[in-house]
């Protein structure tokens, strides 16, 4: 701002320089004319003064007709090379004395003349008076000033003018050069600043990319570890589950054997009551007693078994989710229109809301995507529940779907997806800090109170979307709500695919 204004102020203006030069020339012309006039007046004064001196001296010579004396006075004037001719006339118009140089004519008497300029020669007439008495007239004619003298007189001004114009030109040129270098400097500075800004941007971009890469690697690593553990753990769970089932079966079998044995013994006793089978009966009773005791313990055992089965069930569910995050869950993809999917879920979604939370739909997708519809439903439900939990005091949740063509996608971060469908779940909640946003997809990371969240919701979605060749991202700022974006590549295959297991 200040630089540009200074630049404007100092800017070279050729028109101004030309005007200055013209003014200078005019001034020089005026000075020349003035000096010319002055010089002419000076010369006139000088000649007149000389004529006056002669006139004062020569009065007696005129009065008493002493031509020799008059001529003597006049001859003194010959020493002045500037005088061309001189003449002294008396009152009767008689020539008393005078001279003229070679090539000049004698001066005739002209009583009416005071001063005149003829053929560039200055002619001055002064009357010779003694007191009040006029004796005659003295004429002096000045030789024309040699051009060398005139040239010398005006060369000063000419030189000065020339120097001033040269100085002005140099000043202008210097100014121009300065401006040019200044402009180039300014340009370089601007370019440098732009380059610096670009560099800063690139560095930031690089930092973001590195951060994303780091995050992605972390997720990858966590996914592999948790996936591996979950897989093995799942197998172990299966073993446990199988063993437990066999154990229950065997438990029931042993009870039946007891009862069969008891029934058989009692039948024998009934068939032959005479036989003294007291001892056998006692044994049998004791066996029965044991069986009775066992039966009495059965409900208790059943409770334990149920607890064990529940635990196994929950563990299995957990491992399932971990597998999902690690993108190792079996998926059954088919061609799905997300709008239809969301519409089908509508009752379920609205059922999960709290009273002050409103759900809006902005569904505008016509394209198909390839994904496991059940998992997609799970994902959307999960997102809506998360959004609802972010709105304890009520608010809006918006589910948005849009078809994005590849050209438009090229400008966004999803540039490598090409044509895709963009699903967003946005809430008007408190939003997330940068710290939270970065960790949100990590497994077991939750901001919900202890026991409320597993910390596996978003990570499961993350794994699922990535496994389905999509992208998922979070857009959130504290105080500005949160939006989860899911982008699924468009598919042109309308048929339902067979079960596809990815691991």
């Amino acid at each position, binding site marked *: 701002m200040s630089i540009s204004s200074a630049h404007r102020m100092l800017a070279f203006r050729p028109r101004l320089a030309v005007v200055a030069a013209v003014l200078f020339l005019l001034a020089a012309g005026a000075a020349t004319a003035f000096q010319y006039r002055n010089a002419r007046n000076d010369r006139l004064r000088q000649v007149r003064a000389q004529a006056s001196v002669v006139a004062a001296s020569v009065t*007696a010579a005129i009065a008493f007709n002493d031509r020799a004396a008059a001529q003597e006075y006049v001859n003194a004037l010959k020493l002045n090379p500037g005088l061309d001719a001189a003449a002294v006339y008396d009152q009767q118009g008689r020539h008393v004395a005078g001279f003229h140089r070679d090539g000049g004519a004698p001066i005739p008497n002209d009583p009416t003349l005071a001063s005149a300029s003829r053929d560039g020669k200055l002619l001055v007439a002064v009357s010779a008076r003694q007191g*009040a008495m006029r004796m005659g007239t003295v004429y002096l004619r000045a030789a024309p000033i040699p051009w060398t003298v005139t040239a010398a007189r005006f060369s000063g001004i000419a030189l000065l003018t020339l120097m001033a114009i040269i100085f002005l030109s140099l000043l202008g040129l210097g100014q121009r050069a300065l401006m040019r270098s200044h402009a180039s400097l300014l340009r370089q500075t601007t370019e440098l600043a732009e380059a610096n800004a670009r560099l800063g941007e690139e560095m930031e971009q690089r930092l973001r990319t590195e951060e994303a890469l780091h995050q992605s690697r972390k997720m990858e690593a966590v996914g592999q570890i948790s996936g591996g553990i979950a897989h093995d753990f799942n197998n172990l769970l299966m073993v446990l589950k199988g063993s437990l089932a066999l154990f229950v079966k065997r438990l029931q079998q042993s009870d039946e054997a007891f009862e069969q044995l008891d029934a058989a013994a009692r039948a024998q006793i009934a068939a032959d009551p005479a036989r003294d089978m007291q001892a056998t009966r006692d044994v049998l009773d004791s066996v029965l007693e044991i069986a009775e005791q066992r039966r009495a313990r059965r409900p208790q055992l059943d409770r334990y078994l149920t607890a064990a089965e529940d635990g196994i069930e929950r563990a299995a569910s957990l491992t399932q989710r971990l597998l999902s995050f690690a993108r190792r869950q079996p998926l059954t993809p088919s061609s799905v229109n997300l709008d239809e999917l969301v519409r089908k879920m509508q009752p379920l979604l609205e059922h999960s809301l709290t009273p002050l939370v409103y759900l809006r739909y902005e569904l505008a997708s016509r394209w198909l995507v390839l994904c496991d519809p059940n998992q997609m439903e799970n994902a959307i439900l999960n997102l809506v529940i998360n959004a609802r939990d972010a709105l304890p005091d009520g608010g809006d949740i918006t589910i948005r779907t849009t078809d994005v063509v590849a050209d438009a996608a090229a400008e966004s971060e999803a540039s490598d997806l090409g044509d895709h469908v963009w699903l967003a779940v946005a809430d008007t909640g408190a939003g997330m800090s940068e710290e939270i946003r970065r960790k949100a997809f990590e497994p077991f990371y939750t901001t919900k109170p202890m026991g409320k969240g597993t910390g596996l919701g978003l990570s499961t979605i993350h794994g699922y979307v990535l496994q389905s060749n999509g992208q998922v991202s979070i857009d959130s700022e504290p105080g500005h709500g949160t939006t989860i974006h899911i982008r699924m590549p468009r598919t042109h295959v309308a048929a339902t695919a067979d079960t596809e297991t990815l691991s």
Partner: protein
Amino acid sequence: MRLGSHWRRRLTSALTALSLCVAGAAWAQPAPATLEYAIKATYLYKLIPFVEWPPSAFASRSAPFLICVVGDNPFDGYLSQAVAGRRFGTHPFAVRNLRTLEGKPGCRIVFISGLHDARLRQALAAVAGRPVLTVTDSTIDSDAPSVVHFMIEKRHVRFEIDLGAAARNDLKLSSKLLHLAVTVRH
């Protein structure tokens, strides 16, 4: 050099004076004596601006500037013609012929013509010590000189000047006049 130039000047002056005399003959009387006095009348008049009278010389602002001719009047009206209608400052010129200067007639210029010896000396003595320019043309007495004495030199009217007489009469003469005089006595 100065001397040579002086003599050459004298010669040129005489020649031009002669030519003037010849030219003047056209309008003056043909007789040489008359021409001489015509020139002397003009000179007498032309002497005036080269002479400075003391302020006391005039009785009043309008008092006439009296030119007195003592003795024979040789001018035959030339002098009257020369000064007719002219003034010296505020003083009109007047010409008077006098037989004698007795009685203090108040002359500023006294031209004494044709008087000799005792009469001349008497006339000069009558105005001695008074602001009067005395002019003679006949003889000059070195004991009692006039201020200006006309003479004929080489047929040319010239004059001598006596500064002592001028001083006695309280007159100052212009150096220009002295420069043209044939001789200047102190």
